[in-house]
Every structure is written in C-alpha cells, then in structure tokens.
C-alpha cells in the first residue's frame, strides 16, 4: 500500500496535507482498497464548520458505506466536485485527484498531533 511520507494520517484512514492554514483531506490507499469500487461520495457544503473527529460525509462502494471524519477542526472551504461524476477517481488516485475536501484549520499545529507516515504504516502492519 502506498503511504506517502509527506502526509499525516488518522487511525480511521484519512490523510491530511497542510499548505499554509488550509488542509486537504482524503482517504488512504488502504481505505480505498478495503472499500472496493467506489460509486458515490457524499460531501459537505462549503462554509460548514467541522469539529475534530466529526463525520463530514460518507463514501459508498459496491460493498459498503463508510463515514469519513475530520482529522482536525476548521471550516470547509472547498469540496472535490469532480467526484460527483467520477467517484472512481477515489480508487485510482486517492492522494491526488481523489481528494475529498479542503478545510481552513483553526489551529495548524493540530496537524502535528496526527499520525506520521511511519506511524500509519505501523498501524497497517499490526
């Protein structure tokens, strides 16, 4: 499984990329593989404020439905509209074209408390 070194992770298989005071959030390669073929993504409306660990949407595959959780608190500033018509982007490129939402974070330092790539890899190997 692909676990890019520069990203931060959660135990619930989301990833986070911090740029300035905004994070991009998605689900990991492991998560998309476990879910199987993804057919629908339910995302929030920009402007919604999220608490840490709050469910902000769901990802539906041909097998199951899974909630996705905000790794850090903040306000949704953008959602990946492309997933509306092409949910398979989540399977094909979970760290690039398959990102879910961008959030302006209340406290950028909170990102530091998330799992490192090595920690997340260790979680997958356990």
């Amino acid at each position, binding site marked *: 499984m692909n676990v890019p070194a520069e990203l931060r992770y959660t135990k619930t298989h989301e990833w986070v990329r911090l740029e300035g005071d905004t994070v991009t959030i998605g689900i990991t390669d492991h998560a998309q593989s476990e879910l*199987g*073929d993804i*057919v*629908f993504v339910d995302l929030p409306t920009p402007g919604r404020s999220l608490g840490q660990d709050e469910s902000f949407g769901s990802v*539906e*595959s*041909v*097998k199951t*439905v899974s909630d996705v959780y905000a790794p850090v608190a903040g306000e949704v500033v953008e959602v990946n509209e492309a997933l509306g018509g092409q*949910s398979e982007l989540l399977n094909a490129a979970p760290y690039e074209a398959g990102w879910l939402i961008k959030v302006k974070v209340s406290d950028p330092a909170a990102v530091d408390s998330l799992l490192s790539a090595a920690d997340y890899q260790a979680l997958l190997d356990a």
Partner: protein
Amino acid sequence: MSLTESLQTTPLDVAHRALGGRMVEFAGYSMPVQYKGIIAESRAVREGAGMFDVSHMARLKFTGEGTLAFLEHATANDVAKLGDHQGQYSLLPNATGGTVDDIIVYRYSADEYRMVVNAANHAKDVAHIRTLLPAGVTMADYTAETAMVAVQGPKAAGIVASLSDRSAEAEALPFFGTIDLKVAGVECYAARSGYTGEDGFELQCPAAEAGRLWQALLDAGVEPCGLGSRDTLRVEAGLPLYGHELTDDLSPIAAGLGWVVSKTKAFLGSEPINAARAGGTPTKLQGVRLESKRVAQPGSKVSVDGRAVGEVSSGVYSPLLDCGVAFAFLDPGVKVETPCTVDFRGKAEPGQVVGKRFFKRG
C-alpha cells in the same frame, strides 16, 4: 455468526488465498468476496468467462422406492416432467405458503435424484426434509466430499467443452441439461445452468480434485470471481436470493416465482400458494433503477409521489447499466415506468420502477 467462531473452508480455500481473494464470512464459510474487484469480475462474466467457487452450497442425493412421489410432495415444481439428466429450478415450500429454500432438483436416473440447496439453509433444509422423508427413501448429503465450481459467461460453455472428454455433447447440452464429464481429466457432474443470466456450467467434482479443475480453468483464461460480483450479476439477471426475496414467511408468488409452482399437483403448502396466486399478495417484487450509482440497502423505503409504497430487498451497482439497481417489494398497484424515490439515510434518490430482469442475454 462472529468471526471468532471457526469458519468452514471449501476445498478451494488455498487457491483463493493464493490468488489474493479477499475472504469474508458467508453462511459459516470463509469465502472470497472479490479478487481484482467486483466491477472487473462482473464485466469478465458478461464479456468472457468467470468462475465462482460455490462449494459451500449443499448437495443432496435421493434414492429408493418412492423418491419421485416424495419429491413431488416436498418441492413445488413438476418433478415428473424431468427426464434422465435434466434439472429444474424449484422451491422447498413450507406448510403455510412460505419458502424454506429455493433449490435445483436433478433427475440423474429413474433411481436417483439430486438436489442443490443454499449454503445458508443447509442445516434447516436437511432437518425440514427429514420430517417429510418416507421410509424407503434415503437422503445422502455429499457436500463435504465434493466441490462445485460455476463457470459463467458467453465463452464459458465453449471453454468447459474444449477442456472436456465429450466436447461435442457438452457444447450441445440444453439449458438445465446435465452430463457426466471429465474436465481437464477431473470427473465432473456438469449442469448447463448458473446464477448470472449467462450461459455456462455448474461443475461438481471430488473435493480432492477441485484444485486441479480450478487451475485448468484459470490456465484457460477463466477469471476467478467472488461473492460480490455473483450478487451483482444475479440482481442484473432478475434472480432472487433466499433471505432477501424469499423467506419462510413470504409467498413465492409475491417474488414472481409462480412459474416455478406446479398448477396441477398437490404438494406441501400448495393450498396457501394457490390461494396467493388466485387472490394476489400484499406486495409484489419489482425492479427499481436509480439515476445515481448508489447501492440501495435492504429495508430502504421506496416512495411514489412522496407516499411510501414498499421497501428494497436487494440493491447493487450495475456495471452493465452504470447505475444503482434494486429489487423491492411494492404495493401491487405500482406499475412499471412509475417514477419513484429510494431513501438513502434521509435523502430521496430518484429512480424508476422497472421489470425485475435488468439484463437478458439476447
């Protein structure tokens, strides 16, 4: 059943793990839900040939004086219509007009009949049948010593025939015909049937030789497929699944299976089933085609003009139609082509009531 209880495995368990199959619990067995992916495997079956390990389904043999009369009483279809080496889709009805299981009955010869039943109902069926079994008829459960592989798709029958010792006869076998066949040197009881809406064979073979049969089919280009694509393909083909469209409490008439039920003989439960056929049922199974790709869950409400008219029994994403499709038990008055919505956790997804058969091989 919880995963901490020990699961049964089929004779092909090693092959599934070697192929990277994602194993899940199903009916007490560890079974592959997918290898490459449900969509890819569904396409392989629609376009070429795929194979499913269905060894978990139970296989029974009936012999002895009075077997035909017993089967005529215990099953809904007309068993007397079968010639040697023919099979038929049928039901094990209960006394109250519901369904104990949906099954296939084969006449091997005048002295021997066989039955394939659902894995999830294996113990229940055997117990039910024992209560009906007359003296003189013997039931043998040969599930454990055999394996069963369903090879399905437009190229499936040709591939099985080409690997066999009787290729011309195998190729010419009619739908629901059966034949004793060596496939890649493995003795098989082969039936021209399946659960995908495609042509193909269901092959029963000795458990110890299942790996060799599976490998020969793999080498011939047959794609290994899991339970996920099997479910997708059977819904596309309009085929019911016990526990969803058929239960102990639902009339098979509601599920649209009147064609499986004899109109001429008396059998266990024939009176309530015939009454349902004559007087109608409170709900009727229909197809629902969604505009989106979402997978409707069993129990989800279906509405017409904001009024609840029934609920979903099975839902899948159809790679063939590129949308969500479902079966739903609806008020009998709801006609096909009626616009409807299906509830997804509070959001009404638009769709249309359609016939149950989303796919039919032309």
